[in-house]
């Protein structure tokens, strides 16, 4: 916000508006500090200690040794690879599908409300429930998938790493594409129809109109949608937990953190994993905002 508004030109009206904005934000900022800053700070403190609930008498200061343990473990890097792989594939598929759905929703002539509502249904289903539904569909004993043509009846989807990944990706894409579509639709409606008319008069094809008008004008909306989904996808937990519990090297970093914190009650090591996940998320957000120039407030008057 600061970068886009040179201080010299700040009028008194802008200044008073900004003051009002801060006052309106203040309650939310205080609440955020209480409910997020405190746990984060506590996690950082724990990550610097040896704390294990099962061994209450053996707590001690550990320095950075928990971080060294995590970062030198091949498990952490395998899980980072899995997480990034899932994140990139799901978000890429979702972007393409989401864009197609957004265009359909935007251009729908009749039943607009029905189309928009029905597309949102998967997003409204609880992730755990959706994960179970997909798991049952693909399980050899209970599922219908193995009865489909071209698929072997004996196919054990959760018996191999990449077939498991395939099901996890399908479930994730099915579940969150509507969210992506909705964010893209919001960007789509801001584009002035006159631009398309002018282009049509100049003889631009549908593809040209899409690549020359829609995409450039939607860049902010696309980047915001990608940012949200990428951050979300990096923390993937429920679907994997239900389907494989991380077996067969399908584990994500969140499941790794869960194993240390909840299964082993090793709060020191688990907090170190959590803090590292937080740093990864922070890094992703930073790359999006600085690297791609995602302006979260674009389109706002005076922004």
């Amino acid at each position, binding site marked *: 916000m600061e970068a886009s508004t040179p201080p010299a030109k700040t009028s008194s009206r802008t200044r008073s508006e900004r003051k009002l904005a801060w006052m309106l934000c203040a309650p939310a900022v205080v609440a955020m500090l209480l409910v997020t800053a405190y746990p984060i700070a506590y996690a950082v403190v724990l990550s610097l200690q040896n704390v294990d609930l099962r061994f209450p008498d053996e707590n001690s200061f550990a320095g950075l040794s928990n971080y060294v343990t995590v970062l030198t473990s091949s498990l952490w890097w395998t899980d980072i690879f899995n997480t990034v792989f899932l994140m990139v594939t799901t978000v890429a598929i979702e972007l393409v599908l989401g864009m197609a759905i957004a265009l359909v929703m935007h251009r729908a002539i009749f039943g607009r409300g029905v189309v928009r509502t029905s597309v949102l249904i998967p997003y409204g289903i609880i992730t755990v429930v959706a994960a179970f539904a997909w798991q049952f569909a693909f399980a050899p004993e209970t599922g219908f998938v193995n009865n489909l043509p071209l698929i072997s009846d004996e196919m054990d989807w959760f018996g191999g790493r990449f077939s498991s990944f395939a099901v996890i990706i399908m479930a994730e894409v099915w579940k969150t594409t509507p969210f992506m579509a909705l964010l893209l639709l919001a960007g789509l409606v801001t584009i002035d129809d006159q631009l398309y008319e002018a282009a049509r008069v100049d003889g631009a094809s549908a593809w040209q109109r899409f690549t020359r008008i829609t995409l450039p004008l939607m860049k902010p909306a696309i980047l915001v949608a990608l940012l949200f989904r990428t951050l979300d996808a990096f923390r993937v937990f429920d679907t994997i937990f239900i389907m494989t519990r991380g077996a*067969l090297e399908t584990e994500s970093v969140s499941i790794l953190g869960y194993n240390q914190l909840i299964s082993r009650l090793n709060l020191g090591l688990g907090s170190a994993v959590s803090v590292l996940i937080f740093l990864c998320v922070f890094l992703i957000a930073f790359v999006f905002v600085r690297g791609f120039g995602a302006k979260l407030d674009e389109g706002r008057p005076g922004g």
Partner: protein
Amino acid sequence: MKTGGTIRALICLAAAALTATGLVACGGSSDESGPRELTFFVAIQPGGTIEEVSKRCSEESEGKYTITPEFLPTDASQQREQLVRRLGAEDSSIDIVGMDVIWTGEFANAGWVEPWTGALKNQVTEKVFPNVIETASFEKKLYAAPFNTNTQLLWYRKDLVKKPPKTWDEMIEVAEGLKEAGSIQVQANRYEGYMVFVNALIESAGTEILSGPEEVDLEQGPTEKALQVIGKLANGGAAPPSLSTSDEDTARLGFEAGESAFMTNYTFAYGSAQEEAPDIGKVMGFARFPRVDASKPSKPPLGGFNLAVSSYSENKDVAFEAAACLANDTSQKTAVELDGLPPSRSDLYTDKAVTEAYPGFAGLVKESIEASGPRPTTPAYQDVTLAVQRALHPPDKIDPEDTESIYDELKSNVEDAVKREGLL
């Protein structure tokens, strides 16, 4: 619980307002005149054992206490998760804990459960199988009253196999030679059930995972022999299609569907097959868990629940009495009648309740429990089981011809785990 308390408090208030003296007896944990309320956190049993024994013990206490069960999920890791969260936060709303045999070391070392002493200790261990008492003990102290135990038998199809195989090698060979139903159902998903399977094979081979809370044993020769069995089963023709994701229930389903001639599973499998698949149930034979080493008797898996008193309970004195009642011989008979759970008291195996639940194999269940090889007792149990599961899953990664490298991986994983080092 909470709403009940609020309503009771409101009724109390109203009653106190009505009677000018305010001398209305209102039950509450701090009130000495009424029965004390005990909360019993335990895994749900579909047959209704827990409700039944809680009710009976509350009545038998003659107004001393009332026991309210709070049910935990059926999955063992989820049960533990809910309990450790509460106990870790020193929650006083838990009085009695239904504790899986593998949690004793962890809960005791963390100071979450109270040791048993004196007359009650003698009472709850009377006639109980020694290795079951072992699962309720940590560092020579008893931390829980043994309730039900459990063991796995070998279930086989009498119509396909004349006599049950003695060893795993023999069983795999027979299964591979069958024209139909030539598979063996076990539990090999990456979860606690796989640890149960692996531990039973290692124990049967003549060694053990840990010899003390922090001492790794895993003698190389016998351990590799046990690993060869897993590798041979997983990589051969006797492996069911979804071996690497199998659990007790998929094993039972596969057996009941007639896909498998053999299955290792808990005693519930018999009753289930009689009800769900009577054709298979009729030809269902039983035998002891097969041997790994032909010259050594097998050591079958051991499961079950023991009842402990929480250190954060405000009613410890009566909680001990209540837990002793919940675990006594009458309660154990209820458990076998309603849910088919094997008693931990060895003298009950000639009782009608047991012989009716296990027609023809009550003696075999008893023999199997007596010979069983329990999983290691250590406060770092979760680390050990995660390490074993990580090293050996999926089962088909074990090459039966060359088990040395996987043995090394297993041993170093477990060595790190008992020291609670490294990520798991």
